[in-house]
């Protein structure tokens, strides 16, 4: 019998539930994660199953509860902390880059904390509720940054993140919460952190993307076939970057385009462009391109946000240009 279909949001909840059932050390903390079930309902039902000792409502204190997650992790716990919006990561930034990122390298203390960050636009959230700030952490030694773009990865990356011994920033895309549906992954399913995946084979051009870019790129690739053979490389983890997977994909297609929802000078784009320029320049038949929003905050009005976000039409046009170079 085929597994029941679940949403991306349900996959995140299921991953937390299964991790908590498997391991007493796993607990949740964050604002409104308990009685209310989370700002987006991701933690609904978990308080009832696991009780107040394992699903902890905190004050509005991101510095406080992210710091506390690191302290608990030092003592052998495996906390999952939820930020209500990824935008709010500016508040505990110091705890993440100072305590979270540097402690193992400095002093050999592992801090296995997962921070869940609901990110991304398309929900008319405006400058403080629709950002994709993952690029702030790309290049920060000691952190791992994962960005699931599918239901399977929402589950498998979160399970892997909880079992990982380092701080993992798990950027879950709000617009995918209820848009993506797929069969429920098996409880043993894990997605290795640090490894990209070829989401679609192709020979003419590589779209290198993550998060919300994955379903967008797959749709465009399908629409452009068979005239163009578009490969889609889903990075899954954007830091540390799967260098070999990027280079292998570029070697196969000789044309590359980075698609991301983070504004163009942030995100993972610059790291990938730099990598390709340094190590795959001679494999390229055309300059590498970036499809990303402009360097502004995320706007609110539908006319502005729709123009801001990457679109199927914009991606198709950029790919046609690149293929015709």
């Amino acid at each position, binding site marked *: 019998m085929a597994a029941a279909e679940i949403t991306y949001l349900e996959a995140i909840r299921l991953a937390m539930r299964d991790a908590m059932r498997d391991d007493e050390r796993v607990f949740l903390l964050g604002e409104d994660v308990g009685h209310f079930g989370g700002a987006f309902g991701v933690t609904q039902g978990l308080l009832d199953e696991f009780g107040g000792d394992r699903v902890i409502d*905190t004050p509005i204190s991101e*510095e406080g509860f992210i710091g506390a*997650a690191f*302290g608990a992790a030092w003592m052998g716990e495996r906390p999952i902390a939820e930020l209500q919006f990824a935008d709010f990561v500016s508040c505990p930034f*110091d705890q993440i880059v*100072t305590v979270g990122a540097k402690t*193992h390298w400095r*002093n050999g*203390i592992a801090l296995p904390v997962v921070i869940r960050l609901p990110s991304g636009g398309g929900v008319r959230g405006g400058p403080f509720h629709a950002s994709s700030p993952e690029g702030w952490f790309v290049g920060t030694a000691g952190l791992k940054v994962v960005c699931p773009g599918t239901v399977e990865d929402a589950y498998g990356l979160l399970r892997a993140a909880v079992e990982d011994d380092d701080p993992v920033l798990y950027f879950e895309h709000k617009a995918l919460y209820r848009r993506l549906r797929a069969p429920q992954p098996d409880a043993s399913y894990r997605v290795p*952190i640090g490894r990209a995946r070829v989401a679609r084979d192709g020979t003419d051009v590589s779209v290198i993307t993550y998060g919300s870019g994955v379903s967008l790129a797959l749709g465009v690739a399908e629409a452009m076939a068979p005239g163009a053979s578009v490969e889609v490389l889903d990075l899954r983890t954007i830091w540390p970057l799967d260098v070999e997977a990027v280079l292998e994909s570029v070697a196969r297609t000789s044309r590359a385009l980075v698609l991301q929802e983070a504004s163009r000078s942030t995100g993972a784009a610059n790291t990938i462009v730099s990598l390709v320029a340094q190590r795959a320049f001679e494999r390229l038949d055309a300059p590498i391109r970036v499809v990303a929003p402009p360097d502004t905050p995320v706007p609110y009005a539908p006319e502005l946000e729709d123009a801001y976000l990457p679109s199927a039409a914009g991606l198709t046009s950029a790919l046609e240009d690149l293929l015709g170079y």
Partner: protein
Amino acid sequence: MATDASAVIPCEEAPAVDDDVRRRIFRCVLLHRLMEERIMLLYKQGRIPGSVYTGRGQEAVGAAAGVALSADDVVAPLNREMGCHIARGVTVAHIFRNYLGRATGPTGGRDGNMHFGVPEQGVFPLVSMLGDLVPVMVGAALAFKRRGEPRVALTFFGDGAFNCGDTHEGLNLAGALNVPAVFIAQSNRVAYSTFTERSMRNPVLAQRIEGGYSIPCPRVDGTDALAVYSTVREAVERARSGDGPQAVEALTVRMDGHAAHDDARYMDRELLHEYATRRDPVERLAARLIADGMSADEVASLRDAAAAEVAAGLAEAEAAPAPDPATLEQGVYASPVR
């Protein structure tokens, strides 16, 4: 120690503090003082890179709080609490190895001066962003509470860090979660060069901790090691027994500048003279030991033993190997991805 012994005000009588505890605290404050005197010389000789931050005048607080903890408790000392490391069993050589940047030191040369932890002794590493470790230690205490373990987590902050948001979020969170955390406020009256009177409306931290967070916070003379010990010990045991977070405000004076490069010209000379001649925490404890019957010869022999321990520890540290640059990228991750 060039002070006139007759001018020194002994620690208040503390009959409940037994001889073994007094000796342990005395060793910690002596080692703290003597090591930092040596460290300042090494710094001026160019043998210690970077900078040096001393705890002169504040030795009693870290040492006594460290001795007040039990072996299973955890602590995050800051840069004026070297004696707390000693109290936890960290060796003189290990501390010197960090200052000298040696491969076998606690950070293997990756960080310097007091920026180190010793996890096997339950000591979390200091970060320079003061205030950060308040929530971190609340989290350690939360782990103890979740597991029903009779352990406490203790950390320090100065009056300077009391102006940081992380400190306040940590205090509030400790109260909201009712965890066994203990906070020691080191009120040394000055943050780098700015006096508390100019950085806060109410510099009585105990009032603000008790009134703002409903966390008990007795005030204690931070130059009286035995008083600090008794007060912190009670706070630790209240936290351990389930009474929630506790605090102690220790009133001290920072006798050196913020760091070795700072001549502290802005400090009140009369106040420093008063503290150097009458309220030096090492000498106050020595005077109490003598007043309670320890012979001057024995006190002198304890001083000699500490000096010998410092000399031996430094020699051991200096013989330790330098770090290998080829190892620089090792240990970034606990679970490397490839």
